[in-house]
């Protein structure tokens, strides 16, 4: 099966991301099945900046470790990634770099300076060369460059042509097109979270920048004019979540985006959301911690934190989307359930999902059109009295926005009575605690069960248990292991709290063995499952070096 990886690597500031995105977009326009992973150091200049574009015949479920074409913009990245170049793989690099083996040298810097008088266009010369070697449709590529650079396109197009000419004829072949224009969308996980929020009726975001959560802040800020969003960059994460709660109190769907460290500052506000039963959606782009950790890398270290964070006891909903496509729909679901149950909802992605490009069927905003759970103004006005926290069988009280009638909407971070008045009445305290917790009963029914791949009996199979963005890697690993005569299956959670346990008991009973595969060192899902069911996994595979789990890596670990 045709499957090639083009890896562009250079220092920060050399334009790897720009070039990579242009290449990915050209492949997308050409109807190629693709997945593109970005990896970078936490700095503005120097260091590592890599963009890996994988082109496949079937669905590209994730990234790969090895390289078919390495495009190296400096010596350090050439040395760094040369060991990943597969047998029969190719290297395109700057003419002056030193490398053994089959290397196509392009004097890109020289050409950009001498022939274009634009040294910065060296990366476009390299792109032209790489595109020629791979056999990307150069007309489509030019079209993408024209759109990306606007007025400055001409020199960049010349740079592309220079690189292409110098490289000569194609040496690799891209897979066949599998879709026509309009049949797929190309998007990152970060864009998907933002788009899902907007589709779900979110019109307010306040956040403090923190990689990789910032991607959603940037996306929303750029979409503000088009959708009438209010986007506020707060002074810190404490302010961010409290601002969002203020907006939500006013009846506006609100989002905050951050990473683990920023979420730590938001925890007080999370508990407040639980107490005042005001919906808020929190996006946590995970990265390796503790503390600042590896700021631009990926990991799955915040599952237990997200599930347990906050002082006191209150219900919450936590999702961990598998793909960008699912990030769109689950973000929308997070908004819906946050509104329906008046609870905080958390979305766990990670740097790998946030920054990677993948394909999906056109997103259907109609499927997630927002349903209003707010008490209509007319109904509120007609009520004899209004109790914001009325005790109900479901635990859900009618929620009104302030200022729409003479009825007062009172909320209090202290324990309060049904009207919202501060109280220390112990009977009311018990009733309010039970009312808040009662909401989880119905919420549990709204949580989707884990997915099983491949379908069928687990008898005699080893189950790889995962959650979140590792779906693609584990799924591919299962295919590779089964093709090799193994008997494996994947059980995957993308809605992680409240944890559905009924299916798990069946899976554990049926399977020969269960191995947790997670992007952390301690097996957080495995621990959560044990806590909730008493069931224990027989093995664990963890990756915690800041890089994403890959199918090859999982297969290697299983073999041990």
């Amino acid at each position, binding site marked *: 099966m045709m499957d090639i990886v083009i890896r562009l690597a250079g220092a920060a500031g050399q334009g790897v991301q720009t070039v990579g995105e242009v290449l990915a977009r050209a492949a997308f326009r050409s109807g190629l099945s693709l997945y593109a992973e970005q990896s970078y150091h936490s700095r503005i200049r120097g260091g590592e900046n890599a963009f890996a574009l994988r082109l496949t015949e079937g669905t590209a479920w994730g990234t790969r470790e090895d390289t078919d074409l390495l495009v190296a913009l400096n010596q350090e990245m050439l040395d760094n990634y040369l060991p990943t170049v597969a047998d029969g793989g190719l290297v395109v690099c700057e003419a002056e770099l030193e490398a053994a083996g089959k290397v196509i040298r392009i004097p890109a810097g020289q050409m950009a300076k001498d022939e274009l008088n634009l040294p910065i266009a060296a990366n476009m010369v390299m792109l032209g060369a790489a595109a020629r070697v791979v056999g990307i449709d150069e007309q489509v590529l030019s079209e993408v460059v024209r759109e990306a650079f606007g007025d400055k396109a001409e020199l960049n197009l010349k740079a592309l042509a220079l690189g292409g000419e110098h490289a000569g004829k194609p040496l690799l072949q891209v897979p066949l097109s599998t879709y026509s224009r309009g049949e797929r969308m190309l998007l990152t996980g970060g864009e998907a979270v933002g788009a899902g929020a907007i589709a779900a009726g979110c019109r307010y975001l306040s956040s403090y920048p923190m990689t990789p959560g910032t991607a959603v802040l940037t996306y929303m800020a750029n979409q503000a004019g088009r959708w009438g969003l209010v986007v506020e960059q*707060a002074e810190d994460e*404490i302010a961010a979540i409290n601002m969002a709660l203020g907006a939500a109190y006013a009846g506006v769907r609100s989002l905050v985006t951050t990473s683990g460290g920023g979420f730590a500052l938001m925890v007080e506000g999370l508990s407040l959301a639980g107490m005042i039963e005001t919906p808020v959606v929190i996006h946590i782009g995970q990265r390796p911690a503790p503390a600042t950790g590896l700021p631009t890398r990926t990991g799955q270290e915040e599952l237990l934190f997200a599930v347990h964070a906050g002082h006191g006891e209150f219900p919450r909903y936590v999702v961990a989307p598998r793909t960008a496509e699912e990030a769109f729909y689950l973000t929308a679901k997070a908004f819906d359930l946050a509104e329906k149950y008046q609870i905080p909802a958390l979305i766990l992605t990670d740097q790998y999902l946030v920054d990677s490009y993948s394909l999906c069927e056109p997103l259907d905003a109609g499927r997630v059109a927002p349903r209003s759970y707010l008490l209509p103004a007319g109904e509120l006005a007609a009520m004899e009295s209004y109790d914001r926290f009325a005790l109900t069988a479901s635990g859900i009280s009618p929620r009104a926005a302030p200022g729409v009638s003479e009825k007062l909407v009172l909320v209090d971070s202290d324990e309060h009575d049904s009207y919202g008045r501060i109280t220390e009445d112990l009977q009311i305290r018990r009733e309010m605690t039970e009312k808040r917790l009662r909401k989880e009963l119905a919420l549990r029914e709204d949580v989707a069960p884990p997915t099983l791949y491949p379908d069928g009996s687990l008898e005699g199979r080893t189950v790889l248990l995962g959650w979140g963005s590792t779906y693609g890697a584990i799924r591919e690993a299962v295919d590779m292991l089964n093709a090799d005569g193994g008997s494996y299956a994947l059980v995957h959670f993308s809605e992680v709290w409240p944890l559905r346990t009924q299916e798990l008991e069946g899976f554990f009973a049926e399977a020969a063995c269960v191995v947790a595969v997670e992007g952390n060192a301690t097996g957080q899902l495995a621990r959560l499952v044990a806590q909730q069911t008493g069931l224990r996994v027989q093995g664990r595979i963890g990756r915690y070096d800041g890089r994403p789990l890959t199918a090859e890596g999982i297969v290697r670990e299983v073999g041990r």
Partner: protein
Amino acid sequence: MPVKEKKQAPPPEIAQGRHPMEKYLRTDRIPHIWCAGCGLGTTVSSFLYAMDNLGLDPDSVAVISGIGCTGRVAGYVRMDSYHTTHGRPIPFATGLKLAKPDMKAVVFSGDGDLFAIGGNHFIHAARRNLDINVICVNNLNYGMTGGQAGPTTPLGGRCTTSPYGNFEHPFNLVYLAASAGAPYVARWTSLDVRRLQRAIEEMLVRKGFAFLEIIAPCPTNYGRRNKLGEGLDELRYYAEHAVIEHGADPADTEILPGKDFLVGKFVDEEEPTYWEMYQDKVAELEGGRR
């Protein structure tokens, strides 16, 4: 501190002992929790009279409080109100104002809530210049939690957490607010009820961020520990030491124990507000004009 005896006419009788501004009060919550001699009651009254004098619809005003004695204000006014967690009334008001710009957002909180745990929010709100009114009742310590030292406790002030006297320089709230860019900054004592009312009226009708500091006694904690006498004695002290000087340089408004200090309106400027600039941008994007 000398205590002067002064003959005063008794206050006018009010029918059935009811508060004249009862329409703005949640009478079911009265009596309030504040101590005798505390400045908070008169402060709230001034606010209600200001509302009344302007003829403001209580449904158009939200009162947001933090935690502490002043934090309880939100619980007594018959308006949409929000009693937030400690230090967070300003961010909450910011979100509310951004989501519902036609509603007036009045933050009523204390010196500890607004300037210790919430200090960062305050300076950024002043700089952001949204239409938010912040009324800080400064009683020089944390009253509700038992009299701990706070960000405005004077040097040498004795508190439960500064039993040997306070070694930390206090904030001058007027200077801080002005430095952070607040376009309206005033200070009065809780004795100046008419001036307070006027200041609050000005704040309620003006654009942009407005800050009012109210110096108020805390006879139960700060006053008692620092031998300042009853609430009335503290008020007398303030009456004798507060010197009105409108437009004084905020840098000269420091409050030092035993010395005269300045009250008045120190800053009243027109700065483009967040909301004006936001609306201009929206109009520009829509191709129209405001």
